[in-house]
Protein backbone atom coordinates (compact mmCIF):
# COMPACT_ATOMS: atom_id res chain seq x y z
CA UNK A 1 0.00 0.00 0.00
CA UNK A 2 1.35 3.45 -0.86
CA UNK A 3 2.28 5.76 1.97
CA UNK A 4 0.18 8.88 2.38
CA UNK A 5 1.75 11.10 5.07
CA UNK A 6 -1.31 13.40 5.25
CA UNK A 7 -3.47 10.49 6.35
CA UNK A 8 -1.26 10.05 9.40
CA UNK A 9 -1.59 13.61 10.62
CA UNK A 10 -3.92 14.05 13.56
CA UNK A 11 -7.24 15.72 12.67
CA UNK A 12 -6.78 18.56 15.17
CA UNK A 13 -3.33 19.34 13.78
CA UNK A 14 -4.58 19.28 10.20
CA UNK A 15 -7.38 21.65 11.14
CA UNK A 16 -5.02 24.33 12.46
CA UNK A 17 -4.69 27.11 9.87
CA UNK A 18 -1.21 28.52 9.21
CA UNK A 19 -0.38 31.69 11.14
CA UNK A 20 -1.53 34.87 9.38
CA UNK A 21 1.53 36.70 10.63
CA UNK A 22 4.10 34.76 8.69
CA UNK A 23 2.51 35.04 5.27
CA UNK A 24 3.56 38.61 4.52
CA UNK A 25 6.95 38.32 6.16
CA UNK A 26 8.04 35.51 3.98
CA UNK A 27 7.31 37.81 1.04
CA UNK A 28 9.02 40.77 2.71
CA UNK A 29 12.08 38.69 3.53
CA UNK A 30 12.64 38.13 -0.21
CA UNK A 31 12.25 41.83 -1.07
CA UNK A 32 15.20 44.16 -1.35
CA UNK A 33 15.02 47.30 0.83
CA UNK A 34 11.87 46.16 2.59
CA UNK A 35 11.31 47.77 5.98
CA UNK A 36 9.55 45.73 8.59
CA UNK A 37 7.50 46.78 11.58
CA UNK A 38 6.51 43.20 12.01
CA UNK A 39 8.82 41.46 14.40
CA UNK A 40 7.34 40.74 17.82
CA UNK A 41 10.56 40.65 19.80
CA UNK A 42 12.85 43.23 21.35
CA UNK A 43 15.56 44.71 19.12
CA UNK A 44 17.87 44.95 22.14
CA UNK A 45 20.48 42.30 22.73
CA UNK A 46 20.29 40.55 26.12
CA UNK A 47 22.16 42.76 28.65
CA UNK A 48 25.78 41.74 29.01
CA UNK A 49 25.70 40.77 32.70
CA UNK A 50 23.00 38.23 31.89
CA UNK A 51 24.88 36.79 28.90
CA UNK A 52 28.03 36.72 30.98
CA UNK A 53 26.33 34.68 33.69
CA UNK A 54 25.29 32.14 31.06
CA UNK A 55 28.88 31.96 29.79
CA UNK A 56 30.19 31.65 33.33
CA UNK A 57 27.86 28.74 34.05
CA UNK A 58 29.24 26.95 30.97
CA UNK A 59 32.80 27.63 32.09
CA UNK A 60 32.00 26.06 35.43
CA UNK A 61 30.66 23.00 33.64
CA UNK A 62 27.00 23.53 34.56
CA UNK A 63 25.86 21.42 31.64
CA UNK A 64 23.50 18.91 33.25
CA UNK A 65 19.73 18.83 33.54
CA UNK A 66 18.28 20.88 36.35
CA UNK A 67 15.50 19.45 38.48
CA UNK A 68 12.27 19.10 36.48
CA UNK A 69 10.65 22.16 37.98
CA UNK A 70 13.79 24.23 37.39
CA UNK A 71 16.86 25.37 39.27
CA UNK A 72 15.94 25.90 42.90
CA UNK A 73 17.89 29.15 42.97
CA UNK A 74 15.91 30.43 39.98
CA UNK A 75 12.51 29.43 41.38
CA UNK A 76 13.30 31.27 44.60
CA UNK A 77 14.49 34.27 42.57
CA UNK A 78 11.24 34.27 40.56
CA UNK A 79 9.19 34.28 43.78
CA UNK A 80 11.12 37.15 45.31
CA UNK A 81 11.07 39.10 42.05
CA UNK A 82 7.27 38.75 41.77
CA UNK A 83 6.94 39.93 45.35
CA UNK A 84 9.22 42.89 44.79
CA UNK A 85 7.80 44.10 41.46
CA UNK A 86 4.13 43.05 41.56
CA UNK A 87 3.38 42.31 45.20
CA UNK A 88 2.58 38.65 44.51
CA UNK A 89 3.13 35.93 47.10
CA UNK A 90 4.38 32.61 45.77
CA UNK A 91 6.39 29.91 47.46
CA UNK A 92 9.34 29.41 45.11
CA UNK A 93 9.61 25.70 45.76
CA UNK A 94 6.00 24.57 45.44
CA UNK A 95 4.38 27.26 43.31
CA UNK A 96 6.87 28.08 40.55
CA UNK A 97 7.60 25.96 37.47
CA UNK A 98 10.35 26.98 35.05
CA UNK A 99 9.35 26.35 31.43
CA UNK A 100 10.69 26.67 27.90
CA UNK A 101 9.30 30.15 27.30
CA UNK A 102 5.92 31.41 28.41
CA UNK A 103 4.49 29.46 25.47
CA UNK A 104 5.29 26.11 27.04
CA UNK A 105 3.62 27.23 30.25
CA UNK A 106 0.43 28.07 28.34
CA UNK A 107 0.48 24.69 26.62
CA UNK A 108 1.16 22.84 29.88
CA UNK A 109 -1.62 24.58 31.72
CA UNK A 110 -4.25 23.91 29.08
CA UNK A 111 -3.19 20.29 28.72
CA UNK A 112 -3.23 19.91 32.48
CA UNK A 113 -6.74 21.22 33.11
CA UNK A 114 -8.79 20.57 29.98
CA UNK A 115 -11.04 17.57 29.41
CA UNK A 116 -12.55 17.01 25.95
CA UNK A 117 -15.24 19.60 25.30
CA UNK A 118 -14.20 22.04 28.03
CA UNK A 119 -14.53 25.61 26.84
CA UNK A 120 -11.75 28.17 27.04
CA UNK A 121 -12.59 31.86 26.77
CA UNK A 122 -10.12 33.84 24.67
CA UNK A 123 -10.47 37.62 24.38
CA UNK A 124 -9.51 38.80 20.89
CA UNK A 125 -7.61 40.35 19.21
CA UNK A 126 -4.83 38.45 20.95
CA UNK A 127 -1.67 36.42 20.54
CA UNK A 128 -2.22 33.63 18.04
CA UNK A 129 -1.36 30.57 20.15
CA UNK A 130 -4.30 30.25 22.53
CA UNK A 131 -6.82 28.86 20.05
CA UNK A 132 -4.66 26.12 18.48
CA UNK A 133 -3.23 25.05 21.85
CA UNK A 134 -6.73 24.79 23.28
CA UNK A 135 -7.85 22.71 20.32
CA UNK A 136 -4.81 20.42 20.56
CA UNK A 137 -5.55 19.88 24.24
CA UNK A 138 -9.07 18.74 23.35
CA UNK A 139 -10.74 21.91 24.52
CA UNK A 140 -13.08 24.21 22.65
CA UNK A 141 -11.84 27.76 22.10
CA UNK A 142 -14.54 30.40 22.52
CA UNK A 143 -13.48 33.86 21.47
CA UNK A 144 -14.68 37.10 22.99
CA UNK A 145 -14.48 40.12 20.70
CA UNK A 146 -13.12 43.08 22.62
CA UNK A 147 -13.70 46.55 21.25
CA UNK A 148 -11.50 49.45 20.25
CA UNK A 149 -13.80 51.88 22.03
CA UNK A 150 -13.07 50.02 25.29
CA UNK A 151 -9.34 50.13 24.53
CA UNK A 152 -9.63 46.39 23.88
CA UNK A 153 -10.20 45.68 27.57
CA UNK A 154 -12.32 42.71 28.56
CA UNK A 155 -15.53 43.91 30.25
CA UNK A 156 -17.54 41.90 32.79
CA UNK A 157 -20.58 42.07 30.48
CA UNK A 158 -18.65 40.54 27.59
CA UNK A 159 -17.23 37.89 29.88
CA UNK A 160 -20.61 37.00 31.37
CA UNK A 161 -22.21 36.66 27.95
CA UNK A 162 -19.59 34.14 26.82
CA UNK A 163 -19.84 31.84 29.83
CA UNK A 164 -21.67 28.52 29.43
CA UNK A 165 -21.87 25.50 31.78
CA UNK A 166 -18.90 24.09 29.87
CA UNK A 167 -16.62 27.07 30.43
CA UNK A 168 -13.58 26.14 32.47
CA UNK A 169 -10.82 28.61 31.73
CA UNK A 170 -10.45 32.29 30.95
CA UNK A 171 -7.32 33.42 29.15
CA UNK A 172 -6.33 36.92 30.23
CA UNK A 173 -3.70 38.18 27.79
CA UNK A 174 -2.75 41.63 29.10
CA UNK A 175 -0.74 43.78 28.41
CA UNK A 176 -1.93 42.80 24.97
CA UNK A 177 -0.14 41.71 21.87
CA UNK A 178 -1.29 43.05 19.36
CA UNK A 179 -3.29 46.00 20.73
CA UNK A 180 -1.06 47.33 23.49
CA UNK A 181 -4.17 47.46 25.69
CA UNK A 182 -3.84 46.88 29.44
CA UNK A 183 -6.22 45.94 32.24
CA UNK A 184 -6.10 48.32 35.19
CA UNK A 185 -6.93 47.33 38.73
CA UNK A 186 -10.56 48.44 38.51
CA UNK A 187 -10.99 46.60 35.19
CA UNK A 188 -9.71 43.39 36.79
CA UNK A 189 -11.76 43.84 39.96
CA UNK A 190 -14.90 44.07 37.84
CA UNK A 191 -14.19 40.62 36.39
CA UNK A 192 -13.52 38.86 39.70
CA UNK A 193 -17.13 38.23 40.82
CA UNK A 194 -18.02 36.87 37.37
CA UNK A 195 -15.01 34.55 37.40
CA UNK A 196 -15.77 33.31 40.91
CA UNK A 197 -19.46 32.80 40.26
CA UNK A 198 -18.77 30.69 37.18
CA UNK A 199 -15.96 28.91 39.05
CA UNK A 200 -13.38 29.49 36.32
CA UNK A 201 -9.63 29.27 36.37
CA UNK A 202 -7.68 32.11 34.82
CA UNK A 203 -4.50 31.82 32.86
CA UNK A 204 -2.97 35.27 33.00
CA UNK A 205 -0.37 35.73 30.29
CA UNK A 206 1.75 38.55 31.68
CA UNK A 207 4.75 38.21 29.39
CA UNK A 208 4.57 41.97 28.66
CA UNK A 209 3.94 42.84 32.32
CA UNK A 210 7.19 44.78 32.67
CA UNK A 211 6.52 46.83 29.55
CA UNK A 212 3.88 49.34 30.54
CA UNK A 213 4.05 53.08 30.09
CA UNK A 214 2.85 55.32 32.85
CA UNK A 215 0.72 52.80 34.70
CA UNK A 216 2.23 49.92 36.61
CA UNK A 217 1.04 46.47 35.57
CA UNK A 218 -1.35 44.79 38.00
CA UNK A 219 -1.73 41.02 38.05
CA UNK A 220 -5.17 39.57 38.62
CA UNK A 221 -3.43 37.10 40.93
CA UNK A 222 -2.79 39.95 43.36
CA UNK A 223 -6.52 40.47 43.90
CA UNK A 224 -8.36 38.98 46.88
CA UNK A 225 -9.04 35.27 46.41
CA UNK A 226 -7.63 35.17 42.87
CA UNK A 227 -4.13 33.76 43.46
CA UNK A 228 -5.43 30.21 43.88
CA UNK A 229 -7.56 30.21 40.75
CA UNK A 230 -4.99 31.94 38.56
CA UNK A 231 -1.98 30.52 36.83
CA UNK A 232 0.35 33.38 36.06
CA UNK A 233 2.49 32.87 32.99
CA UNK A 234 5.45 35.06 32.27
CA UNK A 235 9.04 34.82 31.16
CA UNK A 236 12.29 36.54 30.37
CA UNK A 237 11.87 37.16 26.64
CA UNK A 238 10.25 40.56 26.63
CA UNK A 239 11.37 42.15 29.90
CA UNK A 240 15.04 41.24 29.52
CA UNK A 241 15.30 40.85 25.74
CA UNK A 242 15.97 37.13 26.15
CA UNK A 243 13.74 35.66 23.43
CA UNK A 244 16.34 33.22 22.10
CA UNK A 245 17.09 31.77 25.54
CA UNK A 246 13.62 30.23 25.60
CA UNK A 247 12.80 30.62 29.26
CA UNK A 248 9.55 31.32 31.06
CA UNK A 249 7.62 30.27 34.13
CA UNK A 250 4.22 29.45 35.53
CA UNK A 251 3.08 30.25 39.07
CA UNK A 252 -0.07 29.06 40.77
CA UNK A 253 -1.69 26.77 43.29
CA UNK A 254 0.75 24.01 44.37
CA UNK A 255 -1.63 21.24 43.18
CA UNK A 256 -1.92 22.77 39.72
CA UNK A 257 1.82 23.42 39.48
CA UNK A 258 2.52 19.87 40.57
CA UNK A 259 0.23 18.49 37.88
CA UNK A 260 1.76 20.77 35.26
CA UNK A 261 5.23 19.63 36.35
CA UNK A 262 4.15 16.07 35.59
CA UNK A 263 3.32 16.96 31.98
CA UNK A 264 6.47 19.09 31.72
CA UNK A 265 8.77 16.36 32.97
CA UNK A 266 7.64 13.86 30.35
CA UNK A 267 7.57 16.30 27.45
CA UNK A 268 10.54 18.52 28.18
CA UNK A 269 12.45 17.12 31.18
CA UNK A 270 13.73 20.52 32.24
CA UNK A 271 14.28 23.98 30.75
CA UNK A 272 17.73 24.81 29.33
CA UNK A 273 20.31 24.95 32.11
CA UNK A 274 22.48 27.76 30.72
CA UNK A 275 19.44 29.96 30.29
CA UNK A 276 18.35 29.28 33.87
CA UNK A 277 21.67 30.43 35.33
CA UNK A 278 21.58 33.55 33.18
CA UNK A 279 18.01 34.24 34.26
CA UNK A 280 19.00 34.35 37.93
CA UNK A 281 21.22 37.31 37.11
CA UNK A 282 18.38 38.91 35.13
CA UNK A 283 16.02 38.76 38.11
CA UNK A 284 18.56 39.82 40.71
CA UNK A 285 20.39 42.56 38.83
CA UNK A 286 18.17 43.44 35.90
CA UNK A 287 15.79 46.10 37.23
CA UNK A 288 17.87 48.87 35.62
CA UNK A 289 17.87 47.08 32.29
CA UNK A 290 14.09 46.99 32.35
CA UNK A 291 13.88 50.71 33.16
CA UNK A 292 16.28 51.53 30.34
CA UNK A 293 14.55 49.45 27.67
CA UNK A 294 11.14 50.63 28.81
CA UNK A 295 12.12 54.28 28.50
CA UNK A 296 13.51 53.67 25.01
CA UNK A 297 10.34 51.87 23.93
CA UNK A 298 8.30 54.71 25.39
CA UNK A 299 9.96 57.31 23.15
CA UNK A 300 9.34 55.17 20.07
CA UNK A 301 5.77 54.56 21.19
CA UNK A 302 5.13 58.30 21.48
CA UNK A 303 6.63 58.81 18.03
CA UNK A 304 4.68 56.09 16.25
CA UNK A 305 1.32 56.89 17.88
CA UNK A 306 1.54 60.63 17.26
CA UNK A 307 2.51 60.11 13.63
CA UNK A 308 -0.27 57.62 12.92
CA UNK A 309 -2.80 60.03 14.37
CA UNK A 310 -1.29 62.93 12.45
CA UNK A 311 -1.51 61.08 9.13
CA UNK A 312 -5.15 60.22 9.77
CA UNK A 313 -4.91 56.60 10.89
CA UNK A 314 -6.59 56.74 14.25
CA UNK A 315 -4.47 55.02 16.89
CA UNK A 316 -5.50 54.69 20.50
CA UNK A 317 -2.71 55.04 23.02
CA UNK A 318 -1.21 51.62 23.70
CA UNK A 319 -0.23 51.45 27.36
CA UNK A 320 1.72 48.22 27.29
CA UNK A 321 3.81 45.81 25.18
CA UNK A 322 5.57 47.27 22.10
CA UNK A 323 2.85 47.43 19.48
CA UNK A 324 0.71 50.17 18.03
CA UNK A 325 -2.62 49.06 16.61
CA UNK A 326 -3.92 51.85 14.38
CA UNK A 327 -7.29 51.63 12.67
CA UNK A 328 -7.20 51.59 8.88
CA UNK A 329 -10.99 51.57 8.53
CA UNK A 330 -10.98 55.12 7.13
CA UNK A 331 -9.12 53.85 4.04
CA UNK A 332 -11.98 51.56 3.09
CA UNK A 333 -9.54 48.68 2.68
CA UNK A 334 -9.60 45.43 4.61
CA UNK A 335 -6.60 44.71 6.84
CA UNK A 336 -5.20 42.19 4.41
CA UNK A 337 -5.70 44.43 1.37
CA UNK A 338 -4.02 47.30 3.14
CA UNK A 339 -1.06 45.19 4.24
CA UNK A 340 -0.61 43.56 0.86
CA UNK A 341 -0.82 46.84 -1.11
CA UNK A 342 1.52 48.56 1.32
CA UNK A 343 4.02 45.75 1.05
CA UNK A 344 4.05 45.59 -2.75
CA UNK A 345 3.94 49.33 -3.40
CA UNK A 346 6.10 50.71 -0.56
CA UNK A 347 7.92 47.65 0.74
CA UNK A 348 6.78 48.09 4.33
CA UNK A 349 5.74 44.98 6.22
CA UNK A 350 3.15 45.21 8.99
CA UNK A 351 0.73 42.59 10.29
CA UNK A 352 -2.99 42.63 9.41
CA UNK A 353 -5.10 42.94 12.56
CA UNK A 354 -7.35 40.05 11.58
CA UNK A 355 -4.38 37.68 12.07
CA UNK A 356 -5.19 38.10 15.78
CA UNK A 357 -8.86 37.29 15.46
CA UNK A 358 -11.87 38.64 13.60
CA UNK A 359 -12.19 41.64 15.88
CA UNK A 360 -8.78 42.78 14.70
CA UNK A 361 -10.23 43.42 11.23
CA UNK A 362 -9.80 47.06 10.28
CA UNK A 363 -6.51 47.41 12.17
CA UNK A 364 -2.84 46.78 11.54
CA UNK A 365 -0.20 45.81 14.08
CA UNK A 366 3.02 47.78 13.99
CA UNK A 367 5.80 46.81 16.32
CA UNK A 368 7.98 49.62 17.65
CA UNK A 369 10.75 47.30 18.76
CA UNK A 370 12.82 48.95 16.04
CA UNK A 371 15.28 51.82 15.83
CA UNK A 372 13.82 55.32 15.54
CA UNK A 373 15.35 55.62 12.04
CA UNK A 374 13.59 52.44 10.97
CA UNK A 375 10.28 53.55 12.46
CA UNK A 376 10.46 57.01 10.87
CA UNK A 377 11.34 55.61 7.47
CA UNK A 378 8.50 53.09 7.63
CA UNK A 379 6.04 55.81 8.68
CA UNK A 380 7.19 58.09 5.85
CA UNK A 381 6.46 55.31 3.41
CA UNK A 382 3.06 54.56 4.95
CA UNK A 383 2.19 58.26 4.65
CA UNK A 384 3.28 58.27 1.00
CA UNK A 385 1.18 55.16 0.46
CA UNK A 386 -1.91 56.90 1.84
CA UNK A 387 -1.27 60.03 -0.25
CA UNK A 388 -0.37 58.25 -3.52
CA UNK A 389 -3.55 56.22 -3.39
CA UNK A 390 -5.67 59.04 -1.95
CA UNK A 391 -6.87 56.64 0.69
CA UNK A 392 -7.94 59.34 3.13
CA UNK A 393 -10.12 62.23 2.13
Amino acid at each position, binding site marked *: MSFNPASFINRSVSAIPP*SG*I*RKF*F*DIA*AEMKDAISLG*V*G*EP*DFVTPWHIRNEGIYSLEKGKTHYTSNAGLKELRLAVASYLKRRFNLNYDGLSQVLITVGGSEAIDLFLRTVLNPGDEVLIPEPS*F*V*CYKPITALAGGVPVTIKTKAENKFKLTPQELKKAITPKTKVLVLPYPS*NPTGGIMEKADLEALVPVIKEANLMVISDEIYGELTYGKKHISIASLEGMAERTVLVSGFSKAYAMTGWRLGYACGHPDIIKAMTKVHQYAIMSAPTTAQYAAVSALEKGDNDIEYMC*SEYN*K*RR*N*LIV*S*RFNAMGLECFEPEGAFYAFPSIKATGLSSEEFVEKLLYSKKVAVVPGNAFGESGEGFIRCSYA*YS*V*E*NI*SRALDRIEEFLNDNKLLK
Partner: protein
Amino acid sequence: MKNQKLYNDIINSLHKNCKLSLEELAAMHGISVAAAAEIIDNLEKDGTILGYGAIINWDKVNSTNRVTAYIELKVTPQRNQGFDRIAERIYQYPEVTALNLMSGSYDFGVTVEGDNLKDISLFVSQHLATMDAVISTATHFVLKRYKNDGNILTVQKEDDREVMSL
Protein backbone atom coordinates in the same frame (compact mmCIF):
# COMPACT_ATOMS: atom_id res chain seq x y z
CA MET B 1 10.79 75.98 36.59
CA LYS B 2 12.53 73.82 34.04
CA ASN B 3 11.77 70.12 33.93
CA GLN B 4 15.20 68.64 34.56
CA LYS B 5 14.15 65.09 33.68
CA LEU B 6 12.80 66.21 30.33
CA TYR B 7 16.00 68.16 29.67
CA ASN B 8 18.09 65.09 30.55
CA ASP B 9 15.94 62.83 28.37
CA ILE B 10 16.35 65.16 25.41
CA ILE B 11 20.10 65.44 25.99
CA ASN B 12 20.34 61.65 26.03
CA SER B 13 18.27 61.28 22.87
CA LEU B 14 20.40 63.82 21.02
CA HIS B 15 23.63 62.35 22.34
CA LYS B 16 22.60 59.03 20.86
CA ASN B 17 21.34 60.47 17.59
CA CYS B 18 21.64 64.15 16.72
CA LYS B 19 20.01 63.55 13.34
CA LEU B 20 16.59 63.34 14.98
CA SER B 21 14.32 66.01 13.55
CA LEU B 22 12.60 68.48 15.84
CA GLU B 23 9.31 66.77 14.99
CA GLU B 24 10.66 63.35 15.95
CA LEU B 25 12.22 64.64 19.12
CA ALA B 26 9.03 66.42 20.14
CA ALA B 27 6.86 63.36 19.44
CA MET B 28 9.24 61.01 21.26
CA HIS B 29 9.11 63.09 24.41
CA GLY B 30 5.44 63.98 24.18
CA ILE B 31 5.96 67.74 23.82
CA SER B 32 5.22 70.32 21.14
CA VAL B 33 7.71 71.14 18.42
CA ALA B 34 7.98 74.67 19.80
CA ALA B 35 8.78 73.36 23.28
CA ALA B 36 11.45 71.02 21.89
CA ALA B 37 12.98 73.89 19.90
CA GLU B 38 13.08 76.05 23.00
CA ILE B 39 14.79 73.37 25.08
CA ILE B 40 17.45 72.81 22.43
CA ASP B 41 17.92 76.53 22.10
CA ASN B 42 18.49 76.81 25.84
CA LEU B 43 20.93 73.90 25.83
CA GLU B 44 22.90 75.48 23.01
CA LYS B 45 22.95 78.88 24.66
CA ASP B 46 24.11 77.65 28.05
CA GLY B 47 26.87 75.57 26.49
CA THR B 48 25.43 72.15 27.35
CA ILE B 49 25.25 71.29 23.66
CA LEU B 50 28.54 72.34 22.09
CA GLY B 51 27.90 71.08 18.60
CA TYR B 52 26.55 68.28 16.45
CA GLY B 53 28.83 65.78 14.77
CA ALA B 54 28.78 62.31 13.30
CA ILE B 55 30.34 59.44 15.20
CA ILE B 56 33.11 58.28 12.91
CA ASN B 57 35.00 55.03 12.96
CA TRP B 58 38.28 56.54 11.76
CA ASP B 59 39.77 53.15 11.08
CA LYS B 60 37.34 52.92 8.17
CA VAL B 61 38.52 56.17 6.62
CA ASN B 62 41.15 54.94 4.18
CA SER B 63 42.94 58.14 3.40
CA THR B 64 43.76 58.94 7.00
CA ASN B 65 46.30 57.15 9.07
CA ARG B 66 45.76 59.18 12.19
CA VAL B 67 47.65 58.15 15.27
CA THR B 68 46.24 58.67 18.74
CA ALA B 69 48.24 58.71 21.94
CA TYR B 70 47.27 58.93 25.56
CA ILE B 71 49.80 60.82 27.65
CA GLU B 72 50.09 60.73 31.41
CA LEU B 73 51.40 64.01 32.68
CA LYS B 74 52.77 64.77 36.13
CA VAL B 75 52.92 68.47 36.94
CA THR B 76 53.54 70.85 39.81
CA PRO B 77 50.40 72.86 40.45
CA GLN B 78 50.98 76.61 40.49
CA ARG B 79 50.38 78.92 43.44
CA ASN B 80 46.86 80.39 43.50
CA GLN B 81 45.93 78.86 40.18
CA GLY B 82 46.13 75.14 40.89
CA PHE B 83 45.94 73.01 37.79
CA ASP B 84 43.65 75.21 35.73
CA ARG B 85 46.36 77.52 34.47
CA ILE B 86 48.44 74.57 33.26
CA ALA B 87 45.40 72.94 31.68
CA GLU B 88 44.71 76.12 29.74
CA ARG B 89 48.21 76.07 28.31
CA ILE B 90 47.79 72.47 27.23
CA TYR B 91 44.31 72.45 25.74
CA GLN B 92 45.05 75.37 23.42
CA TYR B 93 47.07 73.06 21.17
CA PRO B 94 44.88 71.73 18.35
CA GLU B 95 46.72 68.40 18.60
CA VAL B 96 45.14 67.86 22.01
CA THR B 97 41.70 66.31 21.52
CA ALA B 98 40.89 65.59 25.16
CA LEU B 99 42.27 66.71 28.51
CA ASN B 100 41.27 65.52 31.96
CA LEU B 101 42.56 66.14 35.47
CA MET B 102 42.96 62.74 37.10
CA SER B 103 43.15 61.26 40.56
CA GLY B 104 45.90 58.73 41.19
CA SER B 105 49.53 58.48 40.19
CA TYR B 106 49.54 61.22 37.55
CA ASP B 107 47.76 64.55 37.15
CA PHE B 108 46.62 65.08 33.58
CA GLY B 109 45.42 62.57 31.03
CA VAL B 110 46.04 64.12 27.62
CA THR B 111 44.72 62.63 24.39
CA VAL B 112 46.75 63.74 21.40
CA GLU B 113 46.18 63.06 17.73
CA GLY B 114 48.71 63.36 14.93
CA ASP B 115 49.46 62.15 11.43
CA ASN B 116 52.17 59.74 12.55
CA LEU B 117 54.18 58.55 15.53
CA LYS B 118 56.89 61.09 14.91
CA ASP B 119 54.44 63.99 14.99
CA ILE B 120 53.22 62.96 18.38
CA SER B 121 56.68 62.27 19.78
CA LEU B 122 57.79 65.71 18.65
CA PHE B 123 54.71 67.31 20.13
CA VAL B 124 55.37 65.68 23.49
CA SER B 125 59.08 66.42 23.56
CA GLN B 126 58.85 69.96 22.23
CA HIS B 127 55.63 71.26 23.73
CA LEU B 128 54.53 69.23 26.71
CA ALA B 129 57.82 68.09 28.28
CA THR B 130 59.32 71.53 28.04
CA MET B 131 56.62 73.27 30.07
CA ASP B 132 57.97 74.54 33.40
CA ALA B 133 55.31 72.86 35.49
CA VAL B 134 55.66 69.44 33.85
CA ILE B 135 57.63 66.92 35.91
CA SER B 136 57.28 63.86 33.69
CA THR B 137 55.39 62.38 30.75
CA ALA B 138 54.49 58.83 29.76
CA THR B 139 53.16 58.34 26.24
CA HIS B 140 50.91 55.42 25.27
CA PHE B 141 49.97 54.91 21.63
CA VAL B 142 46.53 53.55 20.72
CA LEU B 143 46.92 50.33 18.74
CA LYS B 144 43.28 49.50 18.07
CA ARG B 145 39.98 51.06 19.02
CA TYR B 146 37.23 48.79 20.27
CA LYS B 147 34.75 51.14 21.82
CA ASN B 148 34.53 54.90 21.78
CA ASP B 149 32.05 57.10 23.64
CA GLY B 150 29.70 54.17 24.13
CA ASN B 151 29.94 52.96 20.54
CA ILE B 152 31.39 49.55 19.82
CA LEU B 153 33.54 49.91 16.71
CA THR B 154 34.49 46.35 15.94
CA VAL B 155 31.12 44.77 15.17
CA GLN B 156 28.55 45.74 12.59
CA LYS B 157 25.07 46.25 13.91
CA GLU B 158 22.40 44.58 11.85
CA ASP B 159 18.91 43.34 12.46
CA ASP B 160 19.25 39.57 12.41
CA ARG B 161 15.87 38.76 13.91
CA GLU B 162 14.23 35.98 11.96
CA VAL B 163 10.64 35.54 10.86
CA MET B 164 8.49 34.37 13.77
CA SER B 165 4.79 33.80 14.13
CA LEU B 166 3.98 35.99 17.07
